[in-house]
């Protein structure tokens, strides 16, 4: 019987093309994404059709699904002024290291009575603490003694962009309405009636008035 002659092939596969693809994807991901911001708590925001960018140098009120409130400011210089004023007003006696921790940290969700012990913790301990932190005490009044969020908002507004800083609320979709109502009425007491909700993006449903408007003139970025 004649033997079938198999050509002896090298088992080497040329990896150059695969390597090209891998690095192309890598480049794409590096350019198209950005790092997840440092957040004190995990919040799943609802989606909206809004295409507006989040205003620069904003103050962020985070509301998680259990109704805990965290406050953060996105402006290093303002943060330094804010913690200085709070330290003086509330006689917290913070050390310079603790103040620096506030400036470098992502946001706080503790009452003023616990602020000093919270800021004294190391960054990873603070992240652990945030998981069971009580949140900033808030109610529907504008009284600074019980509504500490009102105090935070007023102090921060004074220091961020001379009172022109915008407020963004990052609320979990599952947070109940009374909780978000507390935040909204706190802002209302501070005469803040205009603010933003941070949301995910959602497509515009076809055949609606907004879809027609967007098609007519492309949404301004």
């Amino acid at each position, binding site marked *: 019987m004649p033997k079938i002659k198999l050509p002896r092939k090298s088992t080497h596969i040329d990896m150059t093309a695969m390597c090209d693809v891998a690095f192309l994807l*890598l480049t794409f991901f590096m350019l198209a994404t950005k790092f997840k911001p440092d957040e004190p708590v995990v919040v799943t925001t609802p989606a909206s059709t809004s295409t*507006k960018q989040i205003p620069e140098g904003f103050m962020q009120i985070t509301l998680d699904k259990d109704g805990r409130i965290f406050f953060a400011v996105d402006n290093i210089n303002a943060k330094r002024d804010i913690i200085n004023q709070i330290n003086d007003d509330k006689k917290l006696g913070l050390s310079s290291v603790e103040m620096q921790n506030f400036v470098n940290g992502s946001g706080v969700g503790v009452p003023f009575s616990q602020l000093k012990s919270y800021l004294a913790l190391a960054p990873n301990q603070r992240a652990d603490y945030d998981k069971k932190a009580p949140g900033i005490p808030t109610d529907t009044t504008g009284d600074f003694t019980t509504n500490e969020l009102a105090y935070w908002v007023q102090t921060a507004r004074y220091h961020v962009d001379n009172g022109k800083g915008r407020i963004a609320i990052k609320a979990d979709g599952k947070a*109940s*309405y009374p909780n978000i109502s507390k935040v909204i009425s706190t802002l209302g007491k501070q005469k803040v009636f205009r603010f933003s909700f941070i949301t*995910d993006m959602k497509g515009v449903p076809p055949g609606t008035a907004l879809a027609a408007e967007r098609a007519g003139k492309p949404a301004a970025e």
Partner: protein
Amino acid sequence: MAELEVKGGKKGTPRIDLTPMVDLGFLLITFFMFTTTMSKPKAMEIQMPYKDDKLKDEDKNKIKNDEALTLLLSKDHRIYYYNGIGDDPTNPPKVEVTYFKDKDGIRDVLIQKKKTVQSLISQGVLGAKDKVIVLIKPDDNSTTGDLIDILDEMTINAIPVYAVVDITPVDKDFIKATEAVNPQ
């Protein structure tokens, strides 16, 4: 020299095994996929109605019944709605229930309301400057997600005037009565 002879004897390009480099590439891709986020969060602007305790009652309530639509957000993402502002106790409005849906949901209710107001304007019942006004009253059982969804629905349907206001005991009774009539 022996070494040189060997090198000279081999023809063709020198091959480098790229497998580890591919491994490295995919490892980095995986890392970036897990640590970064693709979607940029967006900001939804909202203007709350100006609220001042000093404001007198007669300065309020300038909404005409024909142009208003009241939405009551309640548990399980339900929306109870009725025409008008429901301030006449002798003639309670017909309260109906709907949901957040693309078809036969709240969107159709809003589109229908816009059409009704448009035809009332053409009939001369309402003035030319009158617009649809939607009052949103979330109750204690609704969630923040419901609020954002309904505000978004206002944008989607280009409702000119809308406001989030506090729910009244009367409205809570409407919800209870409607729930009693059609339990779901």
